[in-house]
């Protein structure tokens, strides 16, 4: 039986990766963000799982709009880092864990979550930036193999927050029923509040973000009850991607404890948050 060690919720803003790739982490515009990551990185370095599940969305790099799967899962041996238009990030390709992927897929389908299967997938900043937030200097390889879980957050109607939370709970059961005794870290990515287009572009809502950062630990079902419209109104048209944090949280124990949280703005147009949760109650 596999066991979830921790959940890491984090923004996946491309400029966070770019700031690291270009050695700008000590710049005044960025220093507070990266200082805020330090305690989480130190704890994670001592709690390395055998495998990680990264819940993320693609941004017109691995997928286009021909097919818009609401939920998907990668089942490949490895995932190449995508060229997003300026050359791929100089970070390692991502090693997969197809055995775990296929187990999760079957278990989730048996529970009524019919995920689309990606046998080939190039991964973009949505997946690699969270890995960099966790491991700033991966060297030749990321700390462990990765199972990507994809969520459509770009084209309305996105899955509801409630459905994401329920998927997370089913994912937790799927992990528990895995035949191998492996340890698992789960990353829920995206957010926090932001909006990129329209006359409300630049919208950020720190009060909403503070509420979300607290309740993701203490009361995730309250977050799961928010409607799509309420999320877009309060978190911005792109901030709705916070629903992916609920998949991570759903896979964890009802009671968890916070290792570290940090909030920063702006990371380009976005409020950036991190919440590292230990799956053991405090």
């Amino acid at each position, binding site marked *: 039986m596999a066991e979830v060690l921790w959940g890491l919720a984090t923004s996946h803003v491309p400029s966070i990766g770019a700031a690291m790739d270009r050695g700008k982490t000590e710049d005044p515009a960025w220093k507070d963000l990266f200082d805020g990551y330090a305690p989480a990185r130190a704890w994670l370095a001592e709690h390395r799982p055998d495998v990680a599940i990264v819940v993320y969305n693609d*941004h*017109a*790099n691995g997928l*286009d*709009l*021909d097919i*818009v799967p609401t939920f998907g899962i990668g089942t490949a041996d490895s995932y190449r880092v*995508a*060229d*997003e*238009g*300026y050359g791929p990030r100089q970070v390692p390709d991502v090693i997969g864990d197809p055995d775990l992927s296929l187990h999760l897929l079957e278990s989730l389908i048996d529970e009524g979550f019919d995920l689309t299967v990606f046998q080939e997938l190039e991964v973009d900043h949505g997946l690699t930036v969270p890995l960099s937030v966790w491991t700033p200097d991966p060297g030749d390889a990321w700390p462990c193999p990765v199972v990507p879980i994809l969520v459509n957050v*770009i*084209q*309305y*109607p996105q899955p509801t927050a409630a459905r994401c939370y329920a998927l997370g709970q089913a994912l937790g059961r799927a992990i528990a029923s895995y035949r191998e005794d492996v340890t698992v870290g789960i990353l829920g990515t995206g957010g926090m*509040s*932001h*909006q*990129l*287009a*329209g*006359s*409300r*572009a*630049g*919208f*950020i*809502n*720190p009060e909403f973000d503070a509420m979300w950062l607290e309740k993701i630990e203490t009361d995730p079902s309250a977050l799961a009850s928010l409607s*799509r*419209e309420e999320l*877009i*109104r309060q978190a*911005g*048209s*792109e901030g709705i991607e916070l629903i992916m944090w609920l998949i991570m949280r759903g896979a964890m124990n009802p009671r968890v404890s916070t290792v570290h949280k940090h909030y920063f*703005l*702006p990371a*380009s*147009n976005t*409020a950036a948050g991190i919440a590292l949760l230990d799956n053991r109650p405090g």
Partner: protein
Amino acid sequence: MTAAPTLTEGTPMSSSEAGGRIDVPGTPIFDGQTSRRGLRLNKMLMSFRSADNRERFTADEAAYCAEFGLAPEQTQAVLDRDWTAMIDLGGSIFYVYKLAMMDGRSMQYLGGVFTGMTEEEFQAELRAGGRRHG
């Protein structure tokens, strides 16, 4: 080569009025009708992931748009770098951004365009804690 479609499906949308069933002022909703309207435009923008395609586009932008079957007003928006019109005509911001990157433009520049500000003014508002009201 696809013939240029007309954009009669769905209701016309501007970035000041949300499409679909959600109405949040100043917030374009990239819904199914919008995505139908923008499919060819977005496919063209997606093609900019490859350096070869970026070169071909730069060599003859109008011909490249025609190859992807863009509607005349979509082609015009691309040629004019009318970012608001691209969004109104079905462009997804993540796809439109690929053209902006080719032009060396940042997301903060686009934010300035959408809100009637310079890039610097837009950035200053973000640094001051973000824009609370659109």
